[in-house]
């Protein structure tokens, strides 16, 4: 073994603080050290050129560079080694500048410390193994789950870049929550109007051939990993053939069945064959098999009889089990409202006239249960409305966070109410008010200018809604202890935004962790909010945290960017060699490693009863290596042998 040591003098400065002569003398005597060379500026272009030439001539087996911080230059010097024909991992750097010379006033002490650190590096580097980046063929197709604004934007961007996309949407309708809104804050544009162009592109745009849209579909299984996922999708039958259906909806009126319409949150009824609401895309009715009389054996075929297209309605359509390969998966499954039945003091479900904000959106919508008339479905129009912000939010016992969008839509409601029923009294009751953003404050200002609106802060836990005749009585106490009571015709709750009901189930299927609130957990809240904890699974939209449409589409685009840069065209996937490996001869299958791995990189092989590490998912932190009670895991480039040699030599 011949190790070459280079001492960078950082110009003339370091030899004034560290005795380079003594250093050279002591280090030269070490076993395996072939030479010790001072160099003026290793980091300069000439310095790197010198290093490359010198390595070529000296042909050492291993290299130690004592200079400044490896955090700055290690990668640059590794490239020099590579150019000189050496494995780049045959290098160990020592920081004799920031961690020795500049912090140790006594030159003799500084020299001793530098000597010990370089000695340790030499001992360690002699044990370094040649590591090579491996490359993997990948699939560049993508599965996007959820067709709200985030998923749509992502799917469209990927399709435009030429990627094949499978868009998996659970409901029969595309567009997510906002297609249910009449108007969108901050500028009160019509919801369907801003989404329809996107949906049009998706279904019939220039790149729509790249997108396979699966409605009434859910992901039921995920195998494999980044670059090569195998995704299982189960698609329920629609019983109406989207290719043949002409969207005339003649099939709907003859249906004799009436069930609550879940797409209007049960505020009205629909038939067994139905569109979720007028204008829903794709414009193809679906047949709800559970509600259909045929499910109880009846020979009803009224819808099919009414259909002008032969074969468009198929009662025998089977469920489809679809398998797709994808390099990456984007989760864009959105969020839900907190279940208000868990807030009994607010009267939801018990006091008449109390609605959630999503129900109220439908009441305002012209394709909703009241045809856009502002009134209780089947009841009168209100003369007064209380809008209760922060329902279940900012509450340590419920959801401690602020959902961030409720104030915005509450003030949107304010304007829509004033537009639809001028003069209606509106009471905003809030714990806190927030409206960050360049447009959002103006919605609040407009609400403030509404002469029929008042704004009252209530103290947490000091608000209750009870029945008062046919109306609702809202009792509250402000933070100063002043109490109030108002009787209103309608109450709108703005509940905390939470994860979707089956969010946990999907997280389990994907193996992607959720945070303490149940949202999908990002890799890093600031720097990597769109990557999940599992490589190759990205998060877009309000499945990651509550957010507005603008942020949701930004995240959708961002997830597409991650896919396009990570699984770039014409390039294989590189696997970093600093990863952990399991020694099969030692692994007893205790699974401690899997429990401490933050990246789901460690699987368990039931046949062999042993752990196995997926190099692609491993980030090389070494926590598993330190945790393995049998010493069966080694972290490459940070093996126990290497670290122990370094410890021994640094203390010698």
């Amino acid at each position: 073994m011949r190790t070459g040591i280079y001492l960078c003098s950082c110009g003339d400065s370091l030899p004034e603080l560290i005795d380079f002569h003594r250093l050279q003398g002591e280090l030269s005597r070490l076993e395996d050290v072939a030479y010790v060379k001072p160099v003026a500026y290793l980091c300069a272009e000439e310095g790197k050129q010198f290093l490359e030439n010198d390595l070529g001539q000296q042909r050492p087996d291993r290299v130690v560079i004592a200079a400044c911080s490896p955090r700055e230059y290690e990668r640059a010097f590794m490239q020099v080694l590579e150019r000189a024909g050496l494995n780049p991992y045959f290098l160990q750097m020592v920081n004799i500048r920031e961690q020795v010379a500049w912090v140790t006033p006594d030159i003799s002490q500084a020299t001793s410390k530098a000597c010990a650190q370089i000695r340790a590096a030499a001992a360690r580097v002699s044990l370094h193994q040649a590591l090579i980046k491996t490359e993997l063929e990948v699939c560049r197709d993508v599965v996007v789950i959820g067709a709200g604004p985030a998923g749509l934007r992502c799917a469209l961007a990927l399709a435009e870049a030429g990627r094949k996309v499978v868009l998996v949407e659970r409901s029969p309708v595309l567009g997510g929550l906002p297609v249910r809104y009449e108007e969108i804050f901050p500028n009160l544009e019509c919801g369907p109007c801003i989404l329809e162009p996107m949906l049009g592109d998706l279904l019939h745009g220039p790149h729509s051939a790249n997108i396979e849209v699966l409605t009434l579909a859910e992901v039921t299984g995920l195998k494999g990993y980044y670059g090569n996922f195998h995704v299982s999708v189960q698609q329920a039958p629609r019983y109406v053939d989207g290719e043949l259906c002409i969207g005339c909806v003649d099939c709907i009126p003859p249906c004799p069945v009436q069930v609550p319409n879940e797409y209007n949150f049960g505020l009205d009824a629909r038939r067994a064959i139905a569109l979720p609401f007028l204008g829903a895309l794709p414009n193809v009715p679906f047949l709800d098999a559970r509600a259909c009389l045929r499910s109880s054996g009846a020979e009803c075929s009224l819808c099919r009889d009414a259909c002008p297209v032969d074969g468009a309605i198929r009662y025998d359509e089977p469920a489809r089990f679809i398998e797709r390969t994808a390099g990456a998966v984007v989760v864009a499954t959105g969020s839900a409202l907190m279940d208000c039945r868990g807030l009994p003091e607010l009267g939801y479900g018990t006091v008449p006239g109390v609605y959630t904000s999503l129900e109220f959106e439908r009441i305002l919508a012209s394709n909703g249960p009241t045809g856009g008339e502002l009134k209780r479905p089947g009841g009168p129009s209100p003369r007064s409305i209380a809008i209760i912000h922060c329902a279940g939010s900012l509450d340590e016992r419920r959801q401690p966070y602020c959902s961030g969008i409720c104030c915005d839509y509450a003030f949107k409601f304010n304007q829509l109410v004033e537009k639809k029923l001028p003069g209606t009294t509106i009471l905003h009751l809030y714990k806190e008010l927030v409206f960050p953003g360049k447009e959002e404050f103006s919605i609040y200002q407009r609400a403030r200018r509404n002469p029929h609106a008042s704004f009252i802060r209530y103290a947490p836990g000091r608000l209750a809604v009870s029945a008062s005749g046919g109306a609702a009585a809202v009792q509250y106490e402000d933070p100063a202890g002043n109490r109030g009571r108002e009787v209103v015709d309608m109450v709108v709750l703005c509940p905390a935004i939470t994860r979707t009901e089956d969010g946990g189930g999907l997280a389990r299927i994907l193996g992607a962790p959720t945070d303490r609130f149940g949202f999908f957990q990002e890799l890093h809240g600031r720097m990597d909010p769109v990557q999940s904890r599992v490589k190759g699974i990205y998060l877009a939209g309000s499945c990651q945290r509550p957010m507005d449409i603008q942020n949701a589409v930004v995240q959708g685009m961002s997830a597409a960017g991650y896919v396009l840069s990570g699984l770039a065209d014409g390039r294989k996937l590189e696997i970093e060699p600093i990863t952990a490996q399991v020694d099969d001869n030692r692994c007893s299958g205790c699974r401690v490693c899997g429990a401490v791995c933050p990246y789901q990189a460690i699987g368990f092989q039931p046949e062999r009863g042993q752990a196995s590490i997926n190099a692609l998912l491993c980030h090389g932190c070494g926590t598993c290596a330190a945790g393995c009670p049998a010493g069966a895991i080694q972290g490459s480039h940070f093996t126990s042998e290497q670290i122990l040699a370094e410890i021994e030599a640094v203390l010698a």
Partner: protein
Amino acid sequence: MIEVQTSPDSLSVPHTFEPKIVGFLCNWCSYAGADKAGAAQLSYPPHVRIVRLMCSGRVDPHFVLQAYRDGADGVLILACHAGDCHYQEGNFRAAQRHRMLLRLLAQFGIEEARCRFDSVSAGEGEKFVRVVSETVAAVRALGPLKRPAIDQAIPHSPPPE
């Protein structure tokens, strides 16, 4: 060096005992914190010898024991602050293992002050200097580690590779 500051543990006072301390630093926060101290040219005692690891979660308790065995009088494990770990939760594992280690070390008669765990962020050059200075002073006050006890207690064989 622009200006040499005297560290809290004044270097001018002669000491009879110069402790050897191994400092395990994670690459992302505490090693960067040490770099920051250097960039600010804050001086501190030279007794801590640095071993850089990618994550404090890599600190196998065995490494700590072996450090004592190889002649260390003290060990310093520096990690990112809670919630800041580059690898999500390696620092949390390191803290858990450190608590376990202290119990074990007590059995061998090794004082707590000889094995310090702390958090230093990439920006905390001054905290790095303080932690190092305090550790050196504490270990110095304890005197050399009693070798025979540790040699008996900890088998010399390296861990199974």
